[in-house]
Structure formats: structure tokens, C-alpha cells
């Protein structure tokens, strides 16, 4: 390894940086940088801006509206936008539904669904988890029964992020209850405006309602919305989970959160406090380790290897690190963190010390989630133990 980034990659990084500094609306980055909850419109405005630059689905093939970015470009893009305070790029359409559709869907499905993702006109959500099927996703029981030219869906999905804002859901449903668990699952695209769908918000521990339970009561979904083959959905679902984890080591965000903790310390006259400096230095070490681990994985992926168990490793470290930095930030606030008012935080405009501090508390509460979602860290450890280390297993 000689240079870390090629000249072209350095140019690209500068281009993204420049783009963020001129195009990212200030009111949106203020919200992100200060931990205020974002509204649908905040996400969509930024994604519109990316879409008009052709960067919303940058890693997609050119044929479908992408730029064919390699792993390095994707990484640089994520790192730079996160540091600049851009909203989390919602992965449901771009990273999940889109790739499944262009990899396994038919021509008609590509024509119908891909443009809406690339131009950001359709808001997607992910219908995987169910009350009885979380880590053990294959046990899902939402049923889709074929009836003429439609599937009739009954059951419910839970923890569906942002379903209240979504136009479409990609959904795993059981189409064959007799087959082995993984073999009776299909991948359906469901219009959220179809009669029989009922979205119930769930309040999370940060005081907000971005999670939902989605109920299906005899929902008729056109059979043309089945992606790939019936009962082959598990293959597509696993393909997608691989994609979900590659981008999980959010070093840009970790840096941003650490910088915020540093300003909070400074604002409280704690800039010279050795306890705080010591912890910040340790986090910097962790970020370096995670970054170089990510870069090594990127190099492998760029060289043609499929993302393997290394992505589990990144997911575990990335999520834990964000979580630790978030709690450390609250400790920097000290007793100031005792005040927390979700309503005030979401209504707040302009930024004063009080909102800043509530934003830090908000991130602290919400960052308990990344170690749970996207395949919990326990499940990732199981994957590494079994598939990377080859440890013997007692279970089937």
C-alpha cells in the first residue's frame, strides 16, 4: 500500500466537501449537528439536492441512474456528508429496495420503481421484523395468499422506521407455510396507500414516534409486485442484509459526535480537564482503528471480494463506538443533561446552549438502537464465531 487514496479519490473527496459546504441547507445541518429530530421534509429536501446532482444513488449502475461508484467513493461520500452534518441518507429505497429490484426484479419492475428512487419522489420503508420474528427473521408469519392476479396480505410488521411517511414498503411475506422456514418467504412491494393497511406509531425512549407497527388486513397487492420468484425471498433478503452492514461503520458520524462533545466541554470550561481529554484521546484511537479496518475491507471489496463476515465486525465496532461517544457526551454535559424536553427540542429553532444540550441527550437515548437493529450485535458475533472463526456450534 503506497498512498491511502488515489488522486481521483482525493479530487472526489474535495468535490463532495465543496458540494456540502455550498449545497447543504444550513437549517438542516443545524438540526443534524445539534441532534434535533428531522422531519420528512428535512430528509427529502436534502435528498432532492443529492438527486439533482446525481448522487443519491451514486453506487448504482449508470443504466439505472447511478454513477457506478466503487466502494471507496461510497465510503468517502458517506464520511464527508456525515461530517458536514448532512441527514442520514435514508437507505430504504437507495440501499435496500433499489439493489434488490435491479438485481432480481423484471424489466417492468425496474422501469416502474427505480426512477422514483433515483429522483427521490418515492419514500420507502422496510417491512422485515415482526413481533415474533426479529433476530430469527425466517420465522416471520405475515401471510400472502395468492388470489387471482393479486396477493392478499394479512399479519403485521413491527419496528418499521418511518412507515408513517412512506409511500412504499418492501416486505417479506410467507407464501408457503408448509415448506422449511427459509423456503416459503417472498419479497413483495406494497403501496402504503392500499386499503387495509393501518400504521400505528410506537413511542421510543427518546420521546419520539418514528417507529411503527404496520397491520395488514386483507391487503390486496398486485401479483406483479412480487420481486423475483415466489418463495425465493430469503435469498434476496440476505443479499440486502449484506448491503445494510457494509456502510455501518460510520466514522464520519463518530468524528462529528466527538467534535460536538469537545465543544460542549469547551463551553463548560472543561477544555483542560484530564478526565475528558483522556477519554477523547481514547475515542480518537478507536476511530482510527475502525477507519483503517473499514479501509482494509473496502480494499478487498474493491478488489472483487463479496462483503463477508468483516462487515459484521464493522457493524459491531461502529455501533458500539457511536453509543459510547454519545453517552460520554452526556457525561460532559453533567447536570445540564438533566433537562430534556422532546417537544421543545423538535420545535426549537435557532440554536442555543439549552437546545444543544438536549440534542446531545436525544442522541444518547437514540443511539441505544444501532446495536439492536440491522442484525443485533449478538447475532453479528454469532456470525463471526461460526463463519469466520469456524467455532463448533451446538445449535441447528
Amino acid at each position: 500500500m503506497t498512498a491511502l487514496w488515489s488522486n481521483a479519490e482525493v479530487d472526489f473527496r474535495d468535490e463532495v466537501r465543496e458540494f456540502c459546504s455550498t449545497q447543504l441547507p444550513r437549517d438542516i445541518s443545524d438540526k443534524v449537528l445539534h441532534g434535533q429530530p428531522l422531519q420528512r421534509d428535512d430528509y427529502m429536501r436534502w435528498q432532492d439536492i443529492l438527486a439533482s446532482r446525481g448522487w443519491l444513488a451514486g453506487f448504482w449502475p449508470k443504466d439505472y441512474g447511478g454513477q457506478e461508484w466503487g466502494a471507496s467513493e461510497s465510503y468517502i461520500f458517506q464520511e464527508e456528508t456525515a461530517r458536514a452534518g448532512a441527514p442520514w441518507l435514508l437507505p430504504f429505497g437507495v440501499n435496500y429496495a433499489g439493489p434488490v429490484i435491479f438485481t432480481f426484479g423484471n424489466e417492468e419492475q425496474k422501469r416502474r420503481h427505480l426512477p422514483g428512487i433515483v429522483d427521490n419522489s418515492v419514500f420507502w420503508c422496510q417491512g422485515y421484523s415482526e413481533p415474533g420474528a426479529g433476530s430469527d427473521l425466517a420465522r416471520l408469519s405475515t401471510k400472502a395468499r395468492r388470489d387471482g392476479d393479486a396477493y392478499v396480505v394479512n399479519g403485521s410488521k413491527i419496528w418499521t422506521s418511518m412507515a408513517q411517511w412512506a409511500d412504499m414498503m418492501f416486505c417479506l411475506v410467507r407464501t408457503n407455510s408448509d415448506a422449511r422456514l427459509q423456503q416459503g418467504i417472498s419479497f413483495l412491494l406494497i403501496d402504503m396507500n392500499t386499503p387495509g393497511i393501518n400504521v400505528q406509531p410506537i413511542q421510543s425512549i427518546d420521546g419520539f414516534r418514528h417507529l411503527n407497527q404496520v397491520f395488514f388486513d386483507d391487503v390486496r397487492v398486485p401479483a406483479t409486485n412480487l420481486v423475483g420468484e415466489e418463495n425465493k425471498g430469503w435469498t434476496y433478503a440476505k443479499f440486502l442484509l449484506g448491503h445494510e452492514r457494509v456502510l455501518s461503520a460510520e466514522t464520519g458520524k463518530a468524528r462529528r459526535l466527538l467534535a460536538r462533545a469537545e465543544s460542549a466541554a469547551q463551553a463548560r470550561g472543561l477544555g483542560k480537564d484530564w478526565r475528558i481529554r483522556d477519554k477523547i484521546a481514547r475515542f480518537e484511537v478507536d476511530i482510527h482503528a475502525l477507519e483503517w479496518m473499514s479501509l482494509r475491507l473496502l480494499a478487498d471489496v474493491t478488489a472483487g471480494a463479496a462483503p463477508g463476515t468483516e462487515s459484521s465486525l464493522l457493524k459491531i465496532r461502529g455501533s458500539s463506538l457511536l453509543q459510547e461517544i454519545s453517552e460520554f457526551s452526556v457525561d460532559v454535559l453533567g447536570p445540564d443533561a438533566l433537562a430534556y424536553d422532546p417537544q421543545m427540542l423538535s420545535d426549537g429553532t435557532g440554536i442555543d446552549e439549552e437546545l444543544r444540550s438536549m440534542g446531545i441527550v436525544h442522541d444518547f437515548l437514540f443511539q441505544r438502537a444501532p446495536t439492536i437493529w440491522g442484525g443485533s450485535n449478538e447475532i453479528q458475533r454469532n456470525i463471526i464465531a461460526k463463519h469466520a472463526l469456524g467455532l463448533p456450534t451446538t445449535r441447528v
Partner: protein
Amino acid sequence: MEFSLSDEQNMLRDTAERWLASLPSRPQADRALWREIADMGWLGAGFSEAEGGIDGGPVEVAVIMEMAGRALLRAPLIEGMVLGARLLSGAGAKTSLANVLEGQSIELPALEEPNQRHAPFTPDLRLMDCGGGHRLSGTKSLVSWATLADHFLISASDGAGSLVLLRVPADREGISLRERRLLDGGDAADLLLTDVAIGHDDILCQGNTAEDVLSEALDHATAALCAEAVGLADLLHERTLEYLKTREQFGQPIGSFQALQHRMVDLNIALEEARSLAMMANHALSLPAGEARVSPLSAAKQGVCARCLQIGREAIQLHGGIGMTEELPIGSAFRRLKALSLGLGDEAWHLERIADARGEISTGKEA
């Protein structure tokens, strides 16, 4: 050594548990609820009969605090039942104390200030001389349950810079409240004091006496806080253990996975240690006030909170998605634990105090 509860203490515990179970879930204090708390005899639990109590002490208070923690009761127990009442008792304000213990008057401490990270003995708030009396202008921050208070027990410094404790009616002219919501869901307010007239009768005590009184009250409050934290952790531990036994994934209870069994065992150890430290805190209250108590109380505060928070984080994680929601009491308990760990001196504050109590590490070679 005696670690178990007496019959009376067990009875107090059982009655408290039954009453708490009869309340709506996650009960929030108001005047009516405070009345009931008083009728239960809780307010006098830490005081002698002569002072209007039930001849109890720190153990009785701890029993109540632990049960209240388990039930996620949101009420000014640490603030009013312990800290406020102890200030009055220490200052010899007999009538006021009697009223407080009967639940007639709610008297809450206003000690913390903006830009201070818990420096209770050196308030910035100045008591200014003015003609025959005094005036008070400034801010006390995040006074818990301020809207319920009949009187505020305010700390200030006098002209010579020594500590004064004041007892001021909440409706005194010049006092206004800026209401705030707390991380643990409780209510609080910043107390904005503008040229508040203070007479001699409003002064509870000052100088060394005030320091001793405040110190004693804070010691009791710290021990009570530890007991509440243990109650919260006990709830989290119980719910998590139950969940591991009943939640099934991969066709078996998730508690059958050894990775989770070991995690649960660690939580169990953390809970036992926290409980032990909380008892140590109660024991420390029987030591002479001052230096002898510093290290055990700070160790208990930091040690209990650190362990209980670990239980909180793990309770969320081991519950998976549902642990992130308000459907279960897990998140509430976790937020309260974080608030307890930040209040009455945060982790750094207590560690510093422990280190200071040990004194400097000698650099000399001779040991």
C-alpha cells in the same frame, strides 16, 4: 452484622409495595399523591418520634426509596422527604419540620446553579444587605418539582462569602419559575429571583452551622438516591431475566443462549454489588459527620450508579426492539438512572472526592 430487615421494616416494605401497586403505572406526583404519601407515614420514616417521625432512620428511608424506585414513582422523595426535611431538622426549625412531616407543607431545596457542576457549599447567589434586611437576586437551576413547593430552601452566600440557608415562601414577590422538563420525565423549574426581600425570619442558619446542616442533609440524600437506584436496577434485572426466559427466537427461549446467560449473570453480580454499596451508604450515615463519611458515600454514589446504569444499558439491549420503546418501563428506568447518576454530584465529582480524601500520592521512595 445485621443485613436483614426487622419485622417492622418488612412491614413498611410490604405496605409500600402494596400501595405502589395500587397506583396507575409510572405515577407522577401531585398534591393529592403527596397527601397519600404523608398518610402512609413515609415522610417521617427517617425521623425520631420527638421530631414527629416514626423513630426510623436511614434503613426505613432506604426501604421506601427502593420500593419507589421499583415502581418508577415520580415524586420529590429525595428532594422533599430527605433533603428538605433534613435541612429543616438540622436547622432546628421544629414547627416547619412538623408541618412537612405531616404533609401540610412541601418544602424543596433550591441548591444548584447554572454554570456550577454541583458546588453546594459555595453558591454564587449573593444575599445582599439592604437597609435592615436583605435582598436576593439570581438564579437557582433545575429545582425539581418546583411547582409543588410551598417553600423553597435556598442556599446563598452572605457578604463575607459564607453559606446561608434560607426558607422562603414560594409565592414571595420577586420569585418566578421557568418550568422545565427533566430527562426522567419529572418536572422542574429554574428559580428566577429578582430582588426578593429576605427578612431575619427567613434565615434558617448560616456559617459553619449551615455547612454542617447541608452536609448532613446531602449525605442522607445520597444514601437515599443509592437505594432508589437499586430499586430501579432490581426492576430492570427482574424484567430482563423474565424476558430471557419467555422470549423465544430460533425455537427456544433466548435465555438458553450461553452468550446471553453470561451477560445476565454479570447483571446479577452488578445488582448484588450495587445493593451492597447502597447498604454501605446507609452504614456510613452512622459514622460521625464529616471526613469519615466522605469516601464511603462517594464510593457508594459512583459505584451504585455505574452498576445500575450498566444494568440499564443491557436491559435495553437484551430486550431488542421492544427495549427501545415506552411500551415497557425499561426506558423510563434507564433515563431515571442516568438522571440519578448526574444529580447530587456526577461520576467525575465523586471520583474526585474519593481521590481527594485519599490525599496526595507520595512521591518519596521510602514507604
